[in-house]
């Protein structure tokens, strides 16, 4: 598979064959380039609010990598860099995403079967429980213990729902949690921040949670 020493050409060639590991490596290696293109597009659309939203930009940057992955077979080595070559497609993706809050977009470009398959790739939020996470890897039972060691039951549930919604791309998890628990969005956001701050403090302070400290959730 390796036919060139140029990492860009190597990765584009691998992505052209559908190699998802190459997509991951491409994103890790060229994330700054992709981010710059995404940010330039967001700013040209006069959305400084989104440009300053780190999570949103991170997500769009990952999507830009997928845009290039989908088109990798058409890229020619020695030509424009992939993020410039696919600039229009990246811009369309950014525009569609930014327009999502105020413009109801159709899914006409997704076949019904594909849409069903995509939906099946993710369980709904109710399935993504902290208990289920612990059941997958026994080592994570202490994570469940840490999660349950602070805050009220309601706050634990609200904080978890907030996180699941955020990870699943909900543009406003605070509103979703607020609707579910009958509280204000601002309070929902506060519950989430407070709860995870308490969990993190417990993990860092209590020796029984020491194995969790190197996890990305808690790493300094």
């Amino acid at each position, binding site marked *: *598979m*390796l036919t060139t020493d140029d990492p860009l050409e190597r990765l584009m060639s*691998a992505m052209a064959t*559908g*190699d*998802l*590991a*190459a*997509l*991951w*490596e491409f*994103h*890790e290696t060229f*994330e700054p380039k992709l981010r710059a293109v995404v940010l330039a597009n967001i700013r040209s659309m006069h959305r400084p609010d989104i440009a300053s939203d*780190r*999570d949103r930009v*991170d*997500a769009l*940057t*990952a*999507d830009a*990598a*997928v845009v290039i*992955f989908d088109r990798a077979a058409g890229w020619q080595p020695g030509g424009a860099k992939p993020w410039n070559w696919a600039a229009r497609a990246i811009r369309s993706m950014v525009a569609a995403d930014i327009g999502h809050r105020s413009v109801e977009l159709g899914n006409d470009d997704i076949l019904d079967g*594909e849409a069903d*398959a*995509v939906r*099946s*790739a*993710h*369980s709904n939020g109710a*399935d*993504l*429980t902290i208990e*289920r*996470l612990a059941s*997958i*890897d026994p080592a*994570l039972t202490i*994570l469940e213990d840490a999660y349950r060691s602070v805050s009220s039951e309601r706050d634990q549930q609200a904080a978890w729902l907030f*996180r*699941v919604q*955020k*990870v*699943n*791309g909900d543009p406003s998890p605070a509103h979703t949690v607020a609707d579910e628990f009958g509280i204000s969005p601002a309070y929902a956001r506060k519950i989430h921040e407070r709860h995870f701050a308490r969990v993190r403090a417990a993990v860092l302070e209590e020796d029984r949670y020491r194995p969790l400290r*190197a*996890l*990305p*959730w808690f*790493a*300094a």
Partner: protein
Amino acid sequence: MTARARPSPIGPTRLVGRMADVLAIDGAPYPMAGALAAAVRGRQQLDRSSYAKTLGLDIATVDAAESGHTPLRELPDPIAERILWLGLDLTTLAADPAA
């Protein structure tokens, strides 16, 4: 220049979700597990052959994992042990419908 306190899990988590979408469209029974397995090799920056050799696995096992045909809890230990260090939001691990 603003310093980043901690690496954000949002980008990697979003990406692994998109990778799972690709596998789901291809009909993989365990798309999230496949996406995670592929991400592990992507982090290692190795081709399939070198990666399999490094982890002490055969290529067929690696392929089965990365194509989403192995449930998350049945992934070979050398792969599963590396998932937690991908920088993902851990809720992703609970997203495999058959996990």
